[in-house]
C-alpha cells in the first residue's frame, strides 16, 4: 500500500513535472550545435537565423560548433544523445544525409524534425584566364579528351560533387574529378590554375566572379541568374538532358529531435516563421545570393528524404558508400 502510494506520488511528480516543463517551453536557454565549421555556409546561416529567432523567444539561443566525424556525424551524434526536450538543436545541411551510408552513424535522417532556411544554387565556373568562354566550348573540349580536364569540387558525396556528376551525365562527358575539403579550397585551386573548372554555389563564388577572378559559364539550375550586370545562363538550354538529373539544391537549416514534444516544435516553428518573414533575413539572403525556403516539419522532412535517397544511392553506385542504403531502408530515387 505504502509502495503504491509512493509509486503514484512519483508518477505524479514525473508526469506533473514534464507537463509543466512542456507548457513552459522554453524556460531555459537553447543551444544549437552546428555540425560544420565556423565561417562556412551552415554556420553563418545558423548564427544569422538564431539571432533573428531569439527576438521572438523569451530565452537566448547560443550557437556552438561540433565538427568532425563522417559527414558531420560527430555533431549529429552529440545532439541525438541530448534529451529530446527541444533545448538542443542541430545546425545542418543537405550533405549530412550521407552520414549513415558513409558509416558515421546508424540513424536515418527521419530522426530529425527539420527547418530549412534556404540554399544557394550551384554553378560551373572557370578561372578568368581560361580558354573556355562558354559551357559548350568546355564540353566540346572534354569530349575530345575524356577524363583529362581537372574539375574541382568539395569531397566525394558533397552537393557540389553530385552536381558535377549530374553535369557529366547530362552532357555525356567525363572530367578528372579532384576532390577538396570544401568549397573555399576548391575555388582557391581554380585561382592557382590547379583545376580548370570548379562547381560551388553562387553564394560562395560571387565575390570572386564580381572581382573578375572567376568566369561563370552556366547555372546548374533551370533559370538564368543575374549577378550585377552579368547574366549567367542556365545549362539546361544547351543540354536539355540535364533536367533528368538536376536541379539538386542545397538545404541549409537546423533540426530538433523528431521525438521532441509537440509544443516545443510549435514554439520553434512560430519563431522560425516570424524570423523568416523579417526584412533582415530577406536582405541577408539577397546580399549573399541565397534562395529562402522556410519549409519546416513534414514539408522539410519530405525534402530531406528525397535528398537522402538521391545522395545515398549515388554514393552506393559510385562505390564510395560503406553501408548499403537498402540495409538502412532508404528507398531508391
Amino acid at each position, binding site marked *: 500500500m505504502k509502495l503504491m502510494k509512493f509509486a503514484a506520488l512519483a508518477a505524479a511528480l514525473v508526469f506533473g513535472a514534464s507537463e509543466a516543463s512542456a507548457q513552459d517551453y522554453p524556460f531555459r536557454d537553447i543551444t544549437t550545435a552546428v555540425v560544420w565549421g565556423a*565561417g562556412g555556409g551552415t554556420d553563418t546561416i545558423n548564427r544569422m537565423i538564431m539571432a533573428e529567432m531569439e527576438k521572438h523567444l523569451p530565452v537566448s539561443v547560443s550557437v556552438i560548433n561540433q565538427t568532425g566525424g563522417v559527414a558531420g556525424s560527430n555533431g549529429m551524434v552529440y545532439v541525438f544523445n541530448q534529451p529530446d526536450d527541444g533545448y538542443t538543436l542541430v545546425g545542418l545541411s543537405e550533405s549530412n544525409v550521407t552520414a549513415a551510408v558513409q558509416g558515421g552513424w546508424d540513424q536515418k535522417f527521419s530522426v530529425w524534425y527539420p527547418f530549412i532556411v534556404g540554399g544557394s544554387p550551384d554553378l560551373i565556373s572557370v578561372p578568368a584566364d581560361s580558354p573556355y568562354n562558354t559551357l559548350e566550348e568546355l564540353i566540346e573540349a572534354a569530349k575530345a579528351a575524356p577524363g583529362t580536364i581537372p574539375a574541382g569540387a568539395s569531397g566525394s558525396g558533397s552537393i557540389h560533387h553530385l552536381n558535377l556528376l549530374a553535369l557529366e551525365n547530362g552532357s555525356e562527358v567525363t572530367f578528372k574529378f579532384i576532390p577538396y575539403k570544401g568549397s573555399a579550397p576548391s575555388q582557391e585551386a581554380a*585561382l592557382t590554375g590547379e583545376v580548370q573548372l570548379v562547381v560551388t554555389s553562387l553564394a560562395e563564388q560571387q565575390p*570572386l566572379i564580381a572581382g573578375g577572378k572567376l568566369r561563370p559559364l552556366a547555372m546548374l539550375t533551370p533559370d538564368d541568374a543575374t549577378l550585377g550586370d552579368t547574366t549567367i545562363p542556365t545549362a539546361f538550354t544547351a543540354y536539355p538532358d540535364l533536367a533528368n538529373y538536376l536541379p539538386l539544391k542545397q538545404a541549409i537549416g537546423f533540426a530538433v529531435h523528431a521525438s521532441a514534444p509537440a509544443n516545443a516544435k510549435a514554439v520553434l516553428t512560430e519563431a522560425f516563421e516570424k524570423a523568416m518573414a523579417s526584412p533582415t533575413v530577406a536582405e541577408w539572403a539577397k546580399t549573399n545570393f541565397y534562395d529562402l525556403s522556410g519549409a519546416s516539419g513534414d514539408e522539410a522532412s519530405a525534402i530531406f528524404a528525397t535528398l537522402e535517397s538521391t545522395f545515398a544511392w549515388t554514393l552506393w553506385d559510385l562505390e564510395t558508400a560503406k553501408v548499403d542504403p537498402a540495409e538502412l531502408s532508404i528507398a531508391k530515387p
Partner: protein
Amino acid sequence: MDVLAPLLGFFDSLLMLLSEPETYLYLVASVFLGIVFGALPGLTATLAVTILTGFFGNKVPIEQSLIALLGAYVGAIYGGSFPSILLNIPGTAASAATAMDGHPLTKQGLGGRAIGITTTASFFGTLFGTLCLLSFSGLLLAIAQNIASPEKALLALFGILLSGALMSSDLVIKGWIAGMIGLGMAMVGLDPILSEARFTFDWAYLLSGFQVVPVLMGAFAVPQIIEGLVAGRMIAAAPKIGRITPSAGEVVARSGTVMRSSAIGVGVGALPGVGEDVAGWVSYGVGKSVSKDGARFGKGSLSGLLSAETANNAAIGGAMIPLLVLGIPGSPPAAALLGALKINNIVPGPTIDPSLIHHVVAILVLASAAMLLMGLALARLFIRILTLSPTLFLPVVMALTTIGSFSVGGGVNDLFLMIIVGLVAFVMGKMAYPIAPLVIGVILGGLFDETFRRTLLLSDGELSVFFSRPGALLLLVLNVGLVFSQIGPVKNSLKRLT
C-alpha cells in the same frame, strides 16, 4: 596618390577609432581575454574568436565587434608564449617554437627578460604583418597564387624534417623518427581524397583522426607535469623578476632577426590553410641556419626566441590578406573571422570596400599596442607562478590541460588520447627523443598527405611535376639537401669546408 590613398584611409580609420570611447573598452577586454585564452593550455585563438563571434553575432555593429575579434586573435597568439616560456607547455600550437628557447632562458632565471623580449617581438611582428596587409597585399597574393598542391606538399614535408633536425639533442635521425611517428598518426581516419577509412579498426572515434589539441597537450604538458611532480620543485632556477622591459639596444641589435622573421611570418600566414604554428617553426628553422649565434638556438638564445615569436604574430597580418582580398581564410582563426563578417552581411573578396581593410589595419595596430602594454604589465604577475609550490600548481595545470583537450569536442576519447600520447612522450623524452617533431608531424601530416596525393591525382601519378615547377624544385632541393647534410661523408666534407 595611389601609394598615399591606403595610408590616408588608415589614419582616417585610426582617428575615428581613437575618438570613440567604446574602442578602449572593447580593446582592453578582448586583448586580455585573448591573452588568457592563449595562456591556458589547449584553449586556442580559434576558440577565442569563435566564442566572441557567438557572443556578438550581429547584435552590435561589425565595426565594433571587429575590435573585439581581432583583439582576441592578437592577444591569443601572443598569450600562448607565457606557458611556453615559463613551463615549457605551449599554450597554443602557434607558440610551440617559442618554448624551444624561451624555457631554457627561464631555467637560467631569465624568464622575465624572455617575456619582455617576446612581448616586444610580438608587437613588432603584428605591426609588420599589418603594414604588409596595407601595402603589399597584391604582391603577396600573386606569390601565394603560385603555391599550389605540389609546393604545399613539399613545404609540409620540409616543416617536419626541419623540426626533426632542429630539435634533436644528439642524433638528428631521432628527430626524424619522432616526425615520422607523427606523420603516421596523421594518416589515421578518413583519407582526405577518397574518404576511405584508414587504420580505424571499425572504431567510429578514429574516423575523424587524431585532433591536434589533445596530441599537443599530451606531448608537452603531461611529461612536464610528471617531471615537475617527481622533482618536487619547479624546474626553473629561482626567478629573478628584475627588468622586464627590454632596452632599446637589445632590440635594435637584433633588428635583422626581427625583419627576417616578420617577412617569413607574413609569407607563411598568407598561404591559405597554413597558419601561425607553421610560421613560428619555419622562421625558427631559418633563423637557426642563418643567424650568427645559430649554434646557441635551443639553449636559451634571444635570437631564437625572437625568430619564433615575431613570425607567429606577423602571420596574423599575413592571414588577413587572402581573407580580405579573396575571401579565403589564411589560418583557422581567420576562418572564424570570415564567419563573423558573413553574419554581418559583409562578403570579403575582390569586391570588398577598401575602407574595411583600412579599418582592420587600424584595429590591428591598436590591438598590438594594447598587447604590448598589457603584456609588460602582466609579465610580473605571470612570472610569480614559478614561485608557487609545484604540488599545488601542477595539478591545476593538469586540470586546465584536460579542459583544453576536452574543448575540441571529441569527447572522453580525446582525454585518453592525451594521456597515452603524454606517457609515450614521457618515455621518448627519457630516451632523448625530441617530442616536438611528433607534434609537427601530426599538424602538418594531414596537409602533406592531402596535397601530395592530390598532386599525383592531377598528374596521373607522374612524379616529374615536382621537378617541372620552379617553386616545387626549390623546395625539393631544400628537402633533399637537409637529408643529405646528415649523411656521414657529406657531413664531414661540409665541416671541412667551413
